[in-house]
């Protein structure tokens, strides 16, 4: 995860604009709070949305890497949630796999459609759904490998192998949590695209000049 953080920091140094800073702060705060909304499912387990699909679509995947990592770091440090030892894995799943899956799915489905088109709202929803599912898949793989990697006195600290962890993580996501992430992502995207499309990642560069017949004067 460390090289990913270093690259993300470098990307921000090159691309971050003044007016995006408040949105950066909001993104991290939003991600922190949404992960506190535990969703109960049959079977006694819980889960939650992450918000990193939305952040990746609105502010770009590298911004999502940084903001969601900060939210996860504070969770681990202050509230013992996830834990320090799992921070790298958690960040990889929720602050790297999720934002990039979301961003590429969203871009692929959106194509060259208008920013306020219904197709983009659908794209955001599908991106949220597949991103959370991919994050859960990665988590399932990591958990399922634990019995082979870590054991104390011959007994695994985490006892279940891939044949249990993968279906467990995937089924609860596909049926429940991925829908939550999808709905949050689609609704928030629809609102943001209508309110101020200029904050959306990759928007200004492509569209503004086409709509504005008078070329903007050099400042």
């Amino acid at each position, binding site marked *: 995860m460390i090289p990913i953080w270093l690259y993300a920091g470098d990307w*921000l*140094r090159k691309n*971050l*604009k*003044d007016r*995006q*800073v*408040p*949105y*950066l*702060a*909001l*993104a*991290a*705060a*939003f*991600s*922190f*709070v*949404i992960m*506190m*909304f*535990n*969703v*109960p499912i049959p079977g*006694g*387990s*819980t*889960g*939650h949305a992450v918000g990193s699909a939305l952040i990746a679509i609105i502010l770009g995947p590298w911004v999502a890497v*940084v*903001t969601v990592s*900060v*939210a996860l770091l*504070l*969770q*681990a*440090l*202050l*509230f*013992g*949630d*996830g*834990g*320090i*030892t799992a921070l790298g894995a958690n960040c990889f799943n929720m602050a790297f796999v999720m934002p990039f899956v979301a961003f590429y799915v969203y871009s692929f489905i959106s194509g060259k459609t208008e920013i306020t088109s219904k197709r983009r709202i659908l794209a955001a929803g599908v991106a949220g759904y597949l991103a959370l599912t991919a994050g859960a898949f990665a*988590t399932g793989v990591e*958990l399922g490998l634990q019995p082979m990697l870590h054991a104390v006195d011959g007994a695994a*600290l*985490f006892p279940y192998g891939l044949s249990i*962890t993968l279906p*467990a*993580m995937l089924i*609860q996501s596909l049926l429940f949590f991925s829908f939550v992430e999808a709905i949050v992502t689609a609704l928030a995207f629809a609102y*943001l695209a209508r*309110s*101020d499309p200029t*904050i959306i990642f990759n928007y200004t560069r492509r569209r503004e000049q086409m709509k504005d017949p008078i070329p903007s004067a050099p400042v």
Partner: protein
Amino acid sequence: MDELLRNLLIVLAVMIVVVPIGLLAVGTAYGEWDIGVSSTWAAPIPDYALPSLGGSFLNQSLAYWLSAIIGVVLSGGLLILIGRAITSRN
């Protein structure tokens, strides 16, 4: 303030107000069980709960609200600091 920013702050505030809904879920996320391994780090508010407050839903909610506010202020504050530090150099 920018109208969109103001509206987003309102949404965030509403999310904090209703955050105790997240306490209604009983159980732990898959794989996040306590496996009894002594932790290398003592979190100041473990599991978003302050046992000294007592276990009623209202008291749990107070601790949960406090946690949400601390988390939002610190994560937002950290990103403002990081963002300012980066953009002021450009």
